[in-house]
């Protein structure tokens, strides 16, 4: 006979299946309460989202979230870049604009441009060159851009602009000319130049030759 406790004798149901008996216990009250609470919650949730629309749907949540970071999204509304024209011509034009007598382009140094450059860097380059341009180990990863060692050119602004524009296809860096356009390239390169000698932590070892 099945093992029945003293207080269960009255609620033992009379049927039996292959020796298994069942008791007629009440539903545990807290369990019933839990069930009711979840149902009430569900109704409120549904009405709030789908009927009254007082809770934010994912897309609205997103708009609210990105409103906190306008810097990262202004690009999307910006005018299209001017064409990817020839570098020499572009540099000449810039020189003119900068009223520069000497034969070299000068990096932008104003806060706004550097800020723009940093965001561009973070968005497009950090993936391979690291967050602070410290470089990442590995064949398909980019070298440290803050030290004095350069693989392509001598680390002068024209050199860097040239590398960025044309990319290093065989090493996995795409030409950035078509995607970024000249203005943005100048901004991002100016940012790189501003990092010179910043000695970021976890930097990748030197690549290429040293140019002082």
């Amino acid at each position, binding site marked *: 006979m099945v093992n029945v406790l003293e207080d269960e004798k009255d609620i033992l149901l009379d049927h039996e299946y292959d020796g298994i008996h069942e008791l007629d216990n009440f539903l545990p009250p807290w369990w019933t309460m839990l069930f009711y609470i*979840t149902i009430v919650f569900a109704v409120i949730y549904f009405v709030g989202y789908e009927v009254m629309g007082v809770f934010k749907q994912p*897309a609205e949540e997103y708009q609210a979230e990105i409103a906190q970071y306008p810097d990262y999204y202004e690009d999307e509304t910006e005018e299209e870049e001017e064409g990817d024209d020839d570098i020499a011509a572009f540099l000449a034009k810039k020189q003119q604009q900068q009223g520069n007598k000497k034969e070299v382009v000068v990096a932008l140094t104003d806060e706004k441009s550097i800020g723009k450059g940093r965001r561009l860097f973070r968005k497009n380059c950090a993936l391979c060159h690291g967050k602070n341009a410290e470089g990442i180990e590995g064949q*398909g990863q980019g070298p440290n851009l803050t030290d004095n060692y350069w693989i392509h050119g001598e680390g002068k602004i024209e050199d860097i602009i040239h590398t960025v524009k044309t990319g290093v296809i*065989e090493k996995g860096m795409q030409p950035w000319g078509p995607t970024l356009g000249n203005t943005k390239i100048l901004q991002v390169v100016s940012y790189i130049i501003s990092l010179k000698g910043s000695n970021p932590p976890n930097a990748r070892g030197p690549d290429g030759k040293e140019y002082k």
Partner: protein
Amino acid sequence: MSVETFHYDNKIVRNFAFATVFWGVVGMFFGVLIAFQLPLPGLNFGEHFSFGRLRPIHTNAAIFAFVGNAIFMGIYYSLQRLCKARMFSDKLSKIHFWGWQFIIVAAAVTLLFGYTTSKEYAELEWPIDIAITFIWVVFGINMFGTISVRREKHMYVAIWFYIATFIAVAVLHIFNSLALPVSFMKSYPIYAGVQDALVQWWYGHNAVAFFLTTPYLGLMYYYLPKIADRPVYSYRLSIIHFWSLVFIYIWAGPHHLLYSAVSPWAQTLGVIFSIMLIAPSWGGMLNGLLTLRGAWHTVAKNVELKFMVVAVTSYGMVTLEGPLMSFKSVNSLAHFTDWIVGHVHNGTLGWNGFLTFGIVYWLIPRIYNTKLYSPRLANAHFWIGTLGIVFYLVAMYFSGITQGLMWKELDPDGGLMHENFLSTVKQIIPMYYLRGIGGLLYITGVFLMVYNLFKTVKQGNLQADEEASAPALEQEKTKVKSTHRFLEGHLGLFFILSTLAIIAGGLIELVPGAMNEFISPTKPLVEKYSPLELEGRDIYIREGCNNCHSQMIRPFHNETLRYGAYSEAGDYVYDRPFLWGSKRTGPDLHRIGLRPRNEVWHYDHMVNPQKSSPGSVMPPYPWLATNKLDTSTTSKKIQVMRSLGVPYNYDDVRNAEENLQKEAQELSDILKKGKIDCAPDREMIALIAYLKKLGKRIKVKK
């Protein structure tokens, strides 16, 4: 009242029991192997044994081979006794058994060779799907036949759960597998993009519900009170929790797709029904644990019960955690991480595994008319297994939460703290080892069980036909005490009502969307796939890249920063099957074509990810660079896509191969510029074409 004598068929129970143990070992072996493949990519032994192909083998073996056979073992034993009748047909039992084993072998072989639909837990291609349908029907006839000839007027609660299982699995399997064949082992689903995702996760979620949960609740209701020799705590609770569970479960599928491109309306339903599932699920746990009221002293001495207590407790934990993970805020952290993997294994290792072990330890000695060879060894199994589960869970929760937090972490600037995905991967490598050790412990316990059962079987004798007797079923009408008692006596009515309860959620969630799609189709945001890209996509599917990579960018600042514009329904209109994935062991690839990775980078990375990304856990795919692309079905593929409604025209079908070659040549030339020599007829070319296409939207002129 005449007493009839008949014989229970124990041989079929024995067969399913042996199959359970055998496939359990196989499934767990693959589990341990893939666990170690992550931190040790060198364990990816070439084309057929790389992670992307083995993971589906592990999941399928664990679910359908191990748990599947265990369900049949448990049902064939208990159903006969609850119905006081032998199984309806010995022949059907045999066909069922051998058919199921054949399907398992076919599944394992085809998956190794890369024949897969990519849909999780429904990876098998159409011929095997048809075989499964056939065997399931055989099982159904055998089960309902047995119930029809029962000598017990009322159906016990275990049988209710068996019936619900049969109905739900049949419906799920058929509707999720609908596809148009391209060739003998390749097909495209009739649903595309968002629809495909909804159907798949309606299936995926309810495979958990009706393959891993309801049959096991049925087993619990038979074996637990039987072993403990205690009456079931509450008959009323059984009724309420059974009906609420089978009704509510079906609705919760979209909680796998929160913040995804499926309509917010479906997401809301997914959330609320998940929350309402807590109580019905806990009803099962309570009825199990409270049945042991006053018998806890026996639990300490009885190893089968110990297994069951842990199993039922795990069940309670998982069914609370699941609804909690359906809260959007929790979900935004947990989804795509290893947390989900931990959640699932709490269920499978704890609930399914331990309940199975408890049953097997009890059942084998019974049908062999002997005692368990060594309860002490079983006890050792219990503790080693429990330790294994603890290791596994600690590792996965830790790693999951770490991943989730690192992906989201922003610096004061509002930019990503960890732009390079790899650094989040390296962080959790120790957890991968720990998880592997947990798995090793668990399988060690299983080996102890194998030895123990082997010895038990040797010392006993199979009682192939066990004699039993019961009075014939009385035909006269007795007064029925309640509506439910009435229902328990009427199989047909019970069948109809449970079918209605089960399909309601599916109908309401899936049909309006499908109708709407029919009336006003989603506007495409992307260009359809070129033949080369389509072939590349099929390689992506074949290699199981979706086992590590998602293609679903959620609308969060951190994800749009990392991966690009968030994904919308229009991005997927041509995706058959959808490839959203469920886990980000690697980064999302939905817009990889726009990310700064050029063709050369992809080539180098695919051939040897560890060289490009030192410390990566991605398997190398060198064979893609040497295998020739099979273009024999290219135009057939385009044609099938066309009949499914993708706007290819007749020329696209006819010139498919030519177009493919032209595009391949161009890509090969690009690689050559990057100093890489890859002939245009290699699989790699197609795959890279696909990767470069991903995420590009149609240009809208302003």
